[in-house]
C-alpha cells in the first residue's frame, strides 16, 4: 500500500478507516458480550451467571465466568463465538474460566474447568490462531489442546 499511495494520502485513508472502526464497533459490542449460544438441550441443566442460577434452554447466551451444571440424563450443546463446539453429558460441572476472542489483536484465550462429568470439545478459531491458548483444567490435570477434538471424563 505504501508503494501505491503517497504518504499524505495513506494517512488520510487510515484516518477514514479509524473513523469507520470507531462508529461501527461501539454499537456492535456494547450490549452483546456473549461468547456462546446453547444449541442443543436435554433437561435438566442450569447455568450459574454472576451468582444467579437459571435453567438452560436452547438459545440461552453464555458469558465468561458462567458455570453449567447438568443433572442425570441431561446434556447441553454449545457453539462458541470462535466456532468451537462443546457438548456436556449428564452429571457434569463445566466452568468457562476465561474466553477472550480478539483475533485482530492476536488476543485469544479459552480456558475452562471440568470438575466432574463428560465433555466433548472441538476447537475453533482460537485453537487455530493460537493452539497454546486452549486449555482445560480438571481436578488432577491440565490439558493443552493443539487441535481439534477431545473427550474428557472426570470422575
Amino acid at each position, binding site marked *: 500500500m505504501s508503494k501505491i499511495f503517497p504518504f499524505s494520502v495513506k494517512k488520510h485513508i487510515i484516518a477514514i478507516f479509524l473513523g469507520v472502526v470507531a462508529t461501527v464497533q461501539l454499537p456492535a459490542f456494547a450490549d452483546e458480550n456473549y461468547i456462546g449460544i446453547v444449541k442443543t438441550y436435554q433437561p435438566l441443566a442450569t447455568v450459574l451467571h454472576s451468582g444467579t442460577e437459571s435453567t438452560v434452554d436452547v438459545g440461552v447466551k453464555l458469558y465468561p465466568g458462567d458455570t453449567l451444571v447438568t443433572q442425570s*440424563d441431561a446434556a447441553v450443546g454449545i457453539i462458541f463465538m470462535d466456532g468451537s463446539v462443546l457438548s456436556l453429558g449428564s452429571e457434569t460441572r463445566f466452568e468457562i474460566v476465561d474466553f477472550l476472542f480478539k483475533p485482530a489483536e492476536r488476543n485469544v484465550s479459552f480456558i475452562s474447568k471440568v470438575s466432574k462429568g463428560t465433555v466433548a470439545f472441538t476447537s475453533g478459531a482460537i485453537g487455530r490462531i493460537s493452539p497454546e491458548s486452549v486449555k482445560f483444567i480438571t481436578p488432577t490435570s491440565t490439558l493443552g489442546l493443539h487441535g481439534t477434538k477431545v473427550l474428557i471424563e472426570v470422575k
Partner: protein
Amino acid sequence: MKNSTVLFAIFGLMLAGCSGTTVVLVPDATGKVGKVSVKTKAGEQLLSQSGASTFAGTVDKAPSQVQVLDSTKIQDMFGTALANEPAPPLHYSIYFKSGSAELLPDSKPLLMTMFKAIQERKSCDISVIGHSDRVGDNGTNKGISLKRAESVANVLKTIGLSGDCLDVRYYGENDPVVPTADNVAEPRNRRVEIEVR
C-alpha cells in the same frame, strides 16, 4: 526413576474407572486428528493418535501410558455428550480484489447458496469476518477487512437476513489461510469468512 514411571503407569491403568481424569483424542467432523497434552505435577503425556487416551488419577502422579480405546468403549463413556453435539458450524469464503471491498459478480451464487443454508438451519447466529492479505500496513488492512465484512453483511441484509443475527468482525491480516511474509499479495487471504452456527 524408570521403574517408578512404569509403576505409575500401571497404577494409572488400574485406576481407570475410578476417580480421576480420562482424556481421549478423537477425529473431528472432517476426520482430522489433532494433539492434546495432559499434564499433572508429576509428568506429562501427549496424545496424537486417533482414540489415544490417558488417565490422570491424582495430581502427584504422571498421567498413565497411552491406551487406544475402541469406538464401543468411547460410546460407553461419552455416548450422551456425543449424541447431543451441535452440528458443526458451516463455513463459506468470499474473495476480493487487492485493496478492494467490492463484491465480485461471481460471488452472487455463493451468497444465495449461503442464504438458503442459513434458512434451512434456522440460524440466527452468524459471523461475518473480514480478512486481508499482508500488502500494506496492518492498520490499513484492518480497515479493508472491516469494509469487506460490511459489504457481505449488507448484501445478506438486502436479501432478507435480520441484522440482529449477524456478528460483523474484522481480523485484518492476522488470520491468513495461507501464511506469507509481509507485503506479499495473496488472493486466498483477501476474503470474508461466513460462519453459520
